[in-house]
């Protein structure tokens, strides 16, 4: 059964990708989508049986892979509670995204390729979560990286998409190098790469030391940190996050599936999978908490200033991943996984909703050209609202009733507060980020669906209205100037454009995901994060800390109320500045220009990396080539030798002059030389 879940998508991808000419576009789409729905239908029973407590963990061997001395690993499929959670997340979102793409990609000439990539991605992701050894996890890890690269660059004629795709791959490779070194170190220490064996042996290694790069370090700390660098790359944590916003160059369904619901959560999954190992390395956990909290805050601040609807959601994703990491860092792995689970639904919903808006607005992604769409695309509006209610964590405090994010995010914050001093810092950072989350999420809704239409100024809309139908996703946000935006378009109207609601294939996924965003938290909070039920549910697949979860439920009432208060505050600020008094944001920007510029330019990370890494790499490369290879090695090596030979020949030619005294002179020199040598030698 698990074989079917994992390999059906691969099979579909291969047939649709390689045989598209033979079987045609529609068949490719039916095949891939059908395979995914089949995988999804097979996954839910597994998950529900784990929820019911009737399933046992299992490992299914597939094929021998490598054995080299003690280093041995096979292709295997592991299914336990943690895997089961990921299985339903991946297959459900993937199946819905496949369906959604029928509508969203309808006009694209390259649909079989798109669907094949989506299915290929799903296969790689499934291999990642079913891995029983670190190397297969790495296979899935890089496999999803490849699929992500291919899908970001799906519109390969767009230079910006190509650049974003390469950036995503290379930045991820930086993390992957850390992951690889982590695997090597783990093998060196434990003599195996099998995950269960490592986790069993990890406590025995606590307190041991090892030399890494001539530094004497705590073994478990350095191993966990190296592995965590991998997680940081894939999950776009601060420092290695720069690829994620650019990845929005890909089609929107891709953003929903890969860059929101599944792939980017792989880092969180990895930390949870290896949680017994991380538990033996408190310093590493401290780093995880710090990086998570910092990312959570950083991304939220940037998210408040962006105009591109997808980028706002991308930074929001980055920020929510930060929540998951600091939950893991304080030891609340159940809460981290719970947020991963609910986030997959509401964030996929938000992205697909955004896709529906973009579809309605003829490829316009700039929120400055939206407004008043509530009545035009009501279904999308309600779906986006459900997603926003979920991400901002709306619920009735203390009663335990609320949207998905209410359960999972509050669970994280409470666990962080209960975890002691470091956790409490994370708690306050998280609370502040929640305020920002609420603000930017409602800002997005208000700018898009409320107020007056500002469509006329959009180039895309103008193209649409004036019948200039060339379907190019090429310059989706080229040429929009920040400065003229605010003032100019406030009084503009619809420009004669009529947005249209998306087709059914797009609305059904929105509906299903809305249900998830509304009920997922309420339905599954008990098994995921409640102390006793959690122990029974997780069955040791993560290092579930019963005491911490107990303590989390008994934090002071004020602490429990805090997320609600900041959520309401964020909502109020957003309402105040984007509905009540729409001139407020402009005045704020004028007042705090420098701060706004800093945030709007994403803390200048891209510029910094460009100066630090990209430009020097090319400059040094050119230097090595021109000055090193050509200027030094060749000049003094082969070319020099050739010149020497040539020079020598010329000299020899000149010596053979035909004059007797010349020869006599040389003979004399030779005699003198010989005589001197004999004297030195024998006297």
């Amino acid at each position, binding site marked *: 059964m698990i074989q079917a879940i994992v390999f059906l998508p691969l099979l579909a991808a291969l047939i649709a990708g390689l045989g598209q000419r033979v079987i045609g576009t529609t068949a490719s789409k039916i095949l891939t989508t059908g395979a995914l729905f089949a995988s999804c239908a097979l996954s839910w029973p597994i998950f529900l049986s784990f929820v019911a407590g009737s399933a046992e963990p299992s490992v299914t061997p597939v094929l021998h892979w490598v054995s080299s001395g003690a280093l041995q690993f096979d292709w295997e499929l592991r299914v336990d509670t943690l895997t089961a959670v990921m299985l339903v997340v991946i297959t459900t979102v993937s199946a819905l995204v496949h369906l959604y793409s029928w509508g969203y990609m309808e006009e694209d000439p390259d649909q079989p390729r798109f669907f094949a990539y989506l299915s290929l991605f799903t296969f790689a992701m499934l291999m990642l979560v079913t891995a029983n050894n670190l190397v297969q996890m790495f296979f899935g890890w890089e496999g999803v990286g490849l699929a992500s690269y291919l899908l970001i660059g799906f519109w390969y*004629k767009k230079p910006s998409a*190509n650049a974003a*795709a390469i950036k995503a791959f290379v930045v991820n490779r930086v993390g992957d190098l850390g992951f690889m070194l982590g695997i090597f170190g783990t093998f060196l220490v434990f003599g195996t790469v099998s995950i269960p064996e490592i986790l069993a042996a990890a*406590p*025995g290694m606590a307190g041991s*030391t*090892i030399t890494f*790069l*001539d530094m004497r370090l705590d073994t478990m700390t350095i191993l966990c940190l190296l592995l965590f660098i991998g997680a940081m790359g894939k999950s776009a944590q601060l420092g290695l996050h720069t690829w994620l916003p650019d990845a929005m160059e890909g089609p929107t369904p891709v953003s929903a599936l890969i860059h929101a619901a599944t792939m980017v959560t792989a880092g969180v999954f990895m930390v949870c999978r290896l949680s017994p190992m991380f538990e033996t390395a408190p310093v590493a956990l401290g780093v995880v908490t710090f990086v998570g909290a910092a990312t959570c805050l950083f991304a939220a601040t940037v998210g408040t200033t962006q105009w591109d609807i997808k980028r706002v959601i991308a930074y929001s994703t980055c920020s929510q991943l930060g929540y998951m990491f600091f939950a893991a860092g304080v030891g609340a792995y159940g809460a981290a996984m719970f947020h991963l689970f609910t986030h997959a639904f509401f964030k996929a919903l938000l992205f697909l909703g955004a896709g529906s808006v973009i579809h309605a607005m003829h490829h316009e992604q700039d929120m400055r050209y939206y407004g008043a769409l509530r009545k035009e695309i009501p279904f999308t509006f309600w779906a986006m609202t459900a997603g926003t209610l979920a991400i901002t964590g709306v619920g009735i405090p203390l009663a335990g009733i609320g949207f998905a994010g209410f359960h999972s995010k509050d669970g994280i914050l409470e666990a962080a507060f209960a975890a002691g001093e470091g956790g409490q810092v994370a708690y306050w950072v998280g609370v502040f980020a929640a305020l920002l989350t609420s603000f930017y999420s409602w800002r997005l809704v208000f700018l898009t669906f409320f107020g007056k239409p500002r469509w006329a100024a959009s180039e895309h809309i103008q193209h649409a209205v004036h019948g200039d139908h060339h379907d190019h996703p090429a310059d989706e946000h080229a040429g929009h100037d920040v400065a003229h935006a605010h003032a100019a378009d406030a009084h503009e109207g619809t420009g004669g454009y009529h947005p249209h609601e998306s087709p059914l294939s797009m609305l059904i996924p929105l509906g299903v995901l809305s249900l998830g965003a509304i009920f997922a938290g309420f339905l599954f909070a008990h098994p995921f994060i409640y102390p006793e039920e959690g122990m029974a549910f997780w069955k040791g697949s993560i290092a579930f800390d019963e005491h911490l979860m107990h303590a989390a439920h008994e934090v002071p009432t004020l602490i429990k109320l805090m997320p609600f208060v900041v959520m309401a505050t964020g909502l109020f600020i957003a309402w105040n500045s984007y509905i009540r008094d729409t001139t407020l944001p402009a005045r704020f920007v004028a007042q705090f220009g420098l701060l706004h510029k800093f945030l709007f330019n994403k803390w200048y990370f891209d510029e910094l990396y460009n100066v630090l890494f990209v430009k020097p790499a090319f400059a040094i490369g050119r230097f090595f080539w021109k000055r090193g290879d050509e200027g030094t090695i060749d000049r003094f090596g082969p070319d020099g030798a*050739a010149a020497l030979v040539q020079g020598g020949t010329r000299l020899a030619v000149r010596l053979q002059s035909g004059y007797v005294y010349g020869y006599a002179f040389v003979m004399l020199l030779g005699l003198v030389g010989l005589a001197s040598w004999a004297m030195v030698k024998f006297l």
Partner: protein
Amino acid sequence: MGLLSLMLAVPMVAAIACLFVTDRNARLIAFAATLIDFALGIVLWTRFDIGGAQWQFTERADLFGRFQWALGIDGMALMLIMLTVFLMPLCILASWDAITRRVGLYMAMFLVMETIMIGVFCAQDLILFYIFFEAGLIPMYFIIGIWGGANRIYAAFKFFLYTLLGSVLMLIAMIAMIREAGTTDIPTLLAYNFPPEMQTWLWLAFFASLAVKMPMWPVHTWLPDAHVQAPTAGSMILAGVLLKMGAYGFLRFMMPMFPDASAQLMWIVFVLSMIAVVYTSLVALVQNDMKKLIAYSSVAHMAIVTAGLFAFNQQGIEGALIIMLSHGVVSAALFFCVGVIYDRLHTREIGRYGGLAVNMPAYALFFMLFTMASVGLPGTSGFVGEFLSLAGIYEASSWVALVCGTGVILGAAYMLYLYRRVVFGELTKDDVKAMPDITAREWAIFVPLAAVALWMGVYPESFLAPMRGDVTTVVARLAPAKPAGDAHLAAGKSKAAEAHGEVAHGEAHQAGGVQ
């Protein structure tokens, strides 16, 4: 006549025949002969007894003096011979239409080269080995010099000058070895313990020759020029097999024959390898010529091979061997990728292309596959080799592993950057638009290469199994001289250790790393 002699004779006879027939027949004869050799290779592989005697298919005949016709293979040699006979028919196919001048001579050169390369891998006599090893220069020299590009004479001379210079030193070292040990028999020499101070000199002399063949930094500059000027099939065989002879020499001679010197001087190899990975990767990043870019990437890959070999452990050496095989297939495929579009547009300049995904989708797919294999994506052959060798290197030194590991990042950067400029982007240039997708002949070359690259990635056991015993032998030979790794794992004073009763388990494994 033994199987190995037969494999040497078939291409040799065919080579002579090629000189006297029409162009068309020369192609057919060459293709048939290489296919026959490939079939013989499969027989060789199936009849090779894994886990049996170290040397199999041995043949011995006294010729004159101490000189013997002595052949025999172990698992490593078997795999490299398989690589040779696998690539050869593909090279002949690749030259089918591209070569129009002096076809008979060209085919003869390739067939002679095949004999020589098989000879290198199966020679059991030191002198015989040397003759094969150096003779390989001659056909390659002519292939570059006669059928090469505009600057072919310079490239051919550079290639010749570099490789010859090193080999003179190796010849002297070999004569010294024969005088010392009193035999030219390689298996006997493998067990002979040379005095340590002599080992150092012998090691350095061999190193001078083999480093050029690898090629290692800083004696690598002949390779980009040779590749750029060589015809497509010449590049394929140069990158595919000739570059492996250096590493083969390391593994066959330097490491097991001079273990003490190898341990003493391993730092030279590590330092040069580290420089090579970073240096040549960065140089590859700024190339405008496709072949130069891939040539530089070869130097970077070969640097991981040398570092992996000198890790002195099972993973490092097996990984290095898999990289050799994988690089043999993948770089040959990449050079063929260049050849395919060179045949259509007659330029190697990257900027002249762009947007090929539109009019050559099948080509784009294969190019993507080999690009990914080159950057070591798991599931392809490149990953298994890189992963194993880096794992081995890490056991020896975390610094070397880290620096060589940057090749993983830079490799992705230069290969994807190349791919983007050639295949992606808007299709604007008219002459590029007119390029048709790959032909049936090109499919026939791509498909086997792709199949092997994936096979080696998903189930490398087929390739590792024959070599395992030989690597174990080399590792055992090196073990007394092997320095400790830099990890120095020390158990902690933790109470958890006793509580979990895992001490024995943990310590049993530490042994590998701690020494």
